[in-house]
């Protein structure tokens, strides 16, 4: 290939990449760089004046007990959600992967419908369903003699309730990951093991689990990363309450940036940068997960 044709090909590649590069730059790279700058200034977002204050916003964020509360809530939420999402979806995917199961397509779609439903709408609707005075769940519980339960207003129940709804909402995504993973296991392996007299438990322990190990790492890391982005559901369900018990970092940032009477974009940006670093650490683990997964799969081959 001549250097002219190589140059022409490269030019075409860049022409087709240009929209993505421009949009990614404007909507992803620029906001990231801007938030680093805003974290170093005192600015209310209304005024033209941005006063450079160095690391002062970071000092205030680190000194704010409510920031650490939101940090704790975010991590606790992740601990509640990730095992449930990863393990329960694996079980369901195994059931839905069975060729003998009737109505597989319908069932798979049914579990995927919440994924494609707008999260904020789920939040609003669930508030009605979980209403302790007139919601159907509390009405049923009252009829059974248990009394209404304030799922979203009780300090001990609000976060687990949100976690259950989150798992239900995104169940379908992880299930699809697992279904794809399960379909990479050759059916002949199961057949051969059955001929050798292996039971269901043994098939699972000695074939399914070892073959899925690389996927387990990747799916777990992906799920962890996803749980950090839960603003829409949590905000519409609880707004961070009661008394900050469900205030994840994203709501903390929103509160300082938009909900304050005089917004504090510097403080909010500093919290966002710290949160971004947390996500970046998880992202690095994710990369390692992909690498480890590939290595494991390579070893299996």
């Amino acid at each position: 290939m001549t250097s002219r044709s190589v140059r022409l090909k490269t030019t075409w590649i860049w022409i087709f990449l240009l929209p993505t590069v421009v949009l990614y730059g404007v909507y992803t790279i620029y906001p990231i760089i801007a938030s680093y700058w805003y974290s170093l200034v005192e600015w209310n977002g209304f005024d033209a004046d941005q006063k450079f204050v160095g690391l002062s916003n970071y000092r205030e964020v680190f000194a704010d007990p409510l920031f650490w509360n939101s940090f704790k809530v975010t991590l606790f939420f992740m601990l509640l959600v990730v095992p449930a999402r990863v393990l329960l979806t694996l079980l369901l995917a195994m059931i839905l992967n069975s060729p003998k199961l009737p109505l597989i397509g319908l069932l798979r779609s049914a579990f995927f419908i919440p994924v494609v439903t707008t999260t904020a709408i789920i939040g609003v609707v669930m508030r009605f369903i979980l209403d302790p005075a007139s919601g159907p769940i509390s009405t049923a519980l009252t009829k059974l003699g248990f009394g209404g339960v304030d799922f979203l207003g009780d300090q001990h129940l609000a976060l687990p309730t949100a976690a259950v709804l989150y798992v239900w909402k995104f169940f379908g995504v992880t299930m699809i990951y697992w279904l794809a993973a399960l379909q990479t296991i050759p059916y002949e392996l199961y057949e051969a093991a059955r001929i050798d007299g292996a039971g269901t438990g043994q098939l699972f322990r000695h074939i399914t689990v070892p073959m899925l190990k690389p996927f387990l790492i990747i799916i777990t890391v992906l799920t962890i990363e996803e749980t950090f982005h839960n603003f829409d559901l949590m905000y519409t369900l609880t707004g961070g309450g009661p008394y900050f018990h469900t205030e994840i970092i994203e709501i903390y940032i929103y509160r300082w940036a938009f909900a304050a009477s005089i917004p504090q974009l510097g403080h909010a940006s500093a919290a966002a940068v710290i949160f971004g670093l947390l996500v970046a650490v998880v992202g690095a683990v994710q990369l390692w997960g992909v690498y480890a997964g590939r290595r494991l799969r390579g070893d299996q081959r």
Partner: protein
Amino acid sequence: MTGMTRRSLLGASVLTAVGAATGCSSSSSQSGSTSGGATGTLDWWDHFSSFKRLNDDWAKTQSPSLKTNVAHTYYDASKATQAFQLAHQANKMPDVYSNVIGLPLPALVSGKWVHEVTIPADIKSKLPKDAFTEGITQLDGKLYGFPMFSFRQSSTLVWVNKDHWSKAGLDPNNVPTDYTAFKDALGKLKSAGIQPLTLAIGADGGRIRDQVDDMAQTAGFPGYQGLQFTTGEYAYHHDAYVTVIEFLKQLNDDKLIMPGSNNFGVVDARTRYASGAVGTFIDGIWCAGGSKALAPTIVDKLASGQILVPTSGTNPWCYRGRPAATYFVSADSKNPDAAGKLIASFMSDDYQKGMVEAMDQPPLNLDLVASSNVVDAYKKGVEYCKKNVFLMPQAIVKNPSIAKVDALRKPVTPHVGNIVQGYLGGSIKDLKAELKKLSDATAADRAQALQKAKAAGAKVSEADYVFSDWKPGQDYGAAK
């Protein structure tokens, strides 16, 4: 002849798309450059839900007389601030907008948010002298707007459902005023199988914060939002605050507050009241109009009572500051004269009549309410406010430079509303200690703002917050 290859087809498509996009942007930028006032459109944004229909109609009626197309847009109050923030950064501010931004006037002027307005003499003569305050509605003698609502209003009146109260053997036209009698009444509602009371304790806690501030005043707190008038010190840990919050805790523990109220925003709670799901609701004077907008049939069932007091016979006196401008003209307006005339038109008799009938915040001239065609419950609420809500002393009135301090204040959380939520829900065990922490944090925030303002050259001091000559039950420094 060579046929078109896949690559050349794609290339041609890209070039066509780029050409079309360029053409589009060119035409749109041309129309943009002549948009706004020059094209004859006057944009008007506000957050008054009760006035939505009135304002839509008013925009249509004003278009011919202002010789421009007036376009009214309603924004939910909780989203309006964000909408204005984005519009200002994008230089897309409406010509006229409601004052929901939350910045003090000097910051709005220096941030190029507002334009000076000129009000016709006949309109100005309708406004009381107290309507114009240096630092609040005007700066260095330049007027930036005027208030349309009376400061004699309350966020904390008791609204009852006549049918529910009658069913429980209670007199809805004689709503109890003291804590004990009110609690007994709620108990009777509960015994009659009716959800007794709801409050907007959830969301950001902003509404319950305002209500606890009001109730603390009637419980004897000599100040506003934790700030004592005579000493200029913050004292959220004052006994009055503790008394009010302990009362709410008792209602909560006795299950007299509707389950879920801990998570309700204002609209959630008002919807329960308007739909008849609850017998009693503590809300502002605008509850009548707000509930009517949600469920028109509630209007015939409305009855109201005054703000609660701890013991019978206590004066239910409250104190509020001088009102700020209700509307502003944008600094970027292409047609500030027409925008100023639109704002001035809000003081016309027709608009004022429509405003009163919407039963939202009461107008500057409270006498208009008594002679209007509104429900008795609203009239009663306005009458209570007229007699019991007084003008309070304000540092910004004493020294307009305090606006520079206000612009440097930062949010202090948890605030009183959050503390109420935490105490009722069991997250806070030692109420007084938490309120003391709030007093200290608020005082520290004011100190940092004062220090920064002084460093920037403002002549301000803590003494600006001290009003040793304040007396309860009187308007402070009212124009004679």
